[in-house]
């Protein structure tokens, strides 16, 4: 996975991962993500350039969701492609995380 772009605009953090979020790339992404999250009141994860997410990727978002809930912040995923959306639906991910 190419380097993730993190943009902080006020208290809004926009995260733009690129490529695949699999068992290899997800731990690296998670580490960066965890470093950037503190202080953000709103997190937008733009998945436009992500074409593949495995359960390792899903776990990163679930962990992030738990964190933002504790911080009374909010997180949403945007530009999710069709295939990834299907997986989100299948595992009940949409009940837990806000996806647009």
């Amino acid at each position, binding site marked *: 996975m190419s380097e993730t772009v993190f943009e902080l605009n006020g208290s809004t953090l926009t995260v733009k991962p690129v490529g695949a979020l699999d068992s290899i790339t997800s731990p690296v992404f998670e580490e960066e993500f965890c470093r950037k999250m503190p202080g953000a009141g709103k997190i937008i994860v733009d998945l436009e350039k992500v074409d593949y997410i495995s359960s390792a990727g899903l776990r990163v978002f679930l962990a992030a969701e738990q964190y933002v809930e504790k911080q009374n912040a909010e997180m949403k995923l945007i530009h999710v492609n069709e295939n990834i959306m299907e*997986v989100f639906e299948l595992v009940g991910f949409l009940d837990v995380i806000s996806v647009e």
Partner: protein
Amino acid sequence: MKAVRTDNAKILTKLMLRLLPIQVLLAAVGGVNGMVSSYFASNYVGISAMSAVGLYNPVNTLIGAVSTMLAGGSAILCGKYMGRNEQDRMQNVFSLNLLIAALFSGLFTALLLVFGLFDLTGFFTGDEAVRPLLNQYMIGQAVGLFPFMLGNQLPVYLSLENRQNRTMTASLIYLGANLVLNWLFVQVLRMEAFGLALASSAGFWIFLAVQAQVFLGGKSHYKFQFRKLRWPEGMQIALVGLPGAASNGYQAVRSMIVNNLLQVFIGSVAISAFTASDSVLRIFWSIPAGMLAVSRIMISLSVGEEDRQTLTDVMRVMFRRYIPLMCGVCAVIILCAEPFTRIFFHDPADPVYMMTVWGFRILPLCMPLSIVCMHFTCYAQASGKQGLVNLLAVLDGVVFVAGFTALLIPSLKMNSVYIANVLNGIGCILVIVGYSCLKRKHIPRNMEELMVIPKDFGAEADARIDISVQSVDEVVNVARQVRDFCRRRGIDERRAYLSGLCLEEMAGNIVEHGFTKDQKPHSIDIRVVQKNDGVILRIRDDCVPFDPGERKEMFDPEDIVKNAGIRMVYKIARDVDYQNILGLNVLTIKI
């Protein structure tokens, strides 16, 4: 796409060597039991009882042949259906196999009881001293026919479920019981021929009970289902198993011819020498028999799965591991020729002594050759090459040994029969090579050509991936390769995505959990096949048994964190099937 790297052969080698000792022991138990019975018959009952036992032998061979036919045919069919993941048909073979075995045992039991109780054994012997003993012996044997036949079918299914230890336990208990019961009935209670037969019959009931416990206790996937029986499959079991059973018949004919030749050209001393060497070698023949028992299941599974790679790998393991192993055993037998001879004969000046020594020096040479022939016959059986099967059965069973002995006996005397056995092995291998030349129209250049595997067998090379992985990084890379493979094969993006995902989740799970459960080195063998417009993933590993279906059920369906990968796969896939075959976890996922 070409296989990038595969550890299939490595996994198979480990598996085939791991299963070998038990199968060899199982094959050896029969020989040892024969020795126990002979010991009590000869030492505590007498010559007339030994004659009765001898006269019963052809009946025993016939019943054994029917039992072998049913067990062999069922093993091949079941392995094939298991490879194709046709659970219903496997269950059908299991139920039919047991039912037909029970029917045959009922028929044989009735016949033996009628013959024994009504003294209808006149055509076996006119000897008035022997006939009553034969009648008693038959009645005693009748008691144990049902467990004998059923007990010989169950090892097939126990092996398929990797429970061959159960059969081994049953065999050892049977061995002990046989010894104790013979001592009790024959030596203590003086029940003579009836006691001899009753001891083995009672032993067979114990043998059956120990094995049947697995099936009656619901621990096995195989369940007896009378209502859903598809009877025509019974004919299939018989047809597939017939060559194995027919070889018993051919060997009986061969023995008769060879015995006649020996008697005419040399005298009965030659038969004594041949019998002596043969009786010891019979125990060593359990090694090739055990090797074949292991390979048979792998071969029939591979034929069912249309897995060319495993099929050829089984043969490679046979050539690279089994044959050298057997050569080593043969060298030991040859070196021990004289000590073995001294079990029977003690005077080196007696002609029978050296005749027997040469038996031990020459006959073992045919064992490695026979392993090759047995494996190819088994493959021919499983793949429906009935012509080759029948040809080899006749040539190997009768023609070569009898023919070469007849040809050589005027000049080589006793050694002719030994050399004929070795030439038989060479002849059979030449037939196998010749068959391949004939079918391929050229000399075989590799294992696939030698085996005459049809070109349309299994998926074409570019419609499949065979690859092995040992780490999470490799798993992810293979998942990417699978996605690329699907796109290249014109499979839609959705399926390509889901195929890669399923592979990453399941194989990753094995690396993460299976590899760390013990300290042994493991690897995962992955096969991806495009079939019609779908994708089939087969993930095979040699870690501790792990059924993802059971794991999935263990957690709250509302909890999306726990086992998300496994649950995802079960929701995505059209079908997920887990089987533990011979100790390997085999997961088949259809997308």
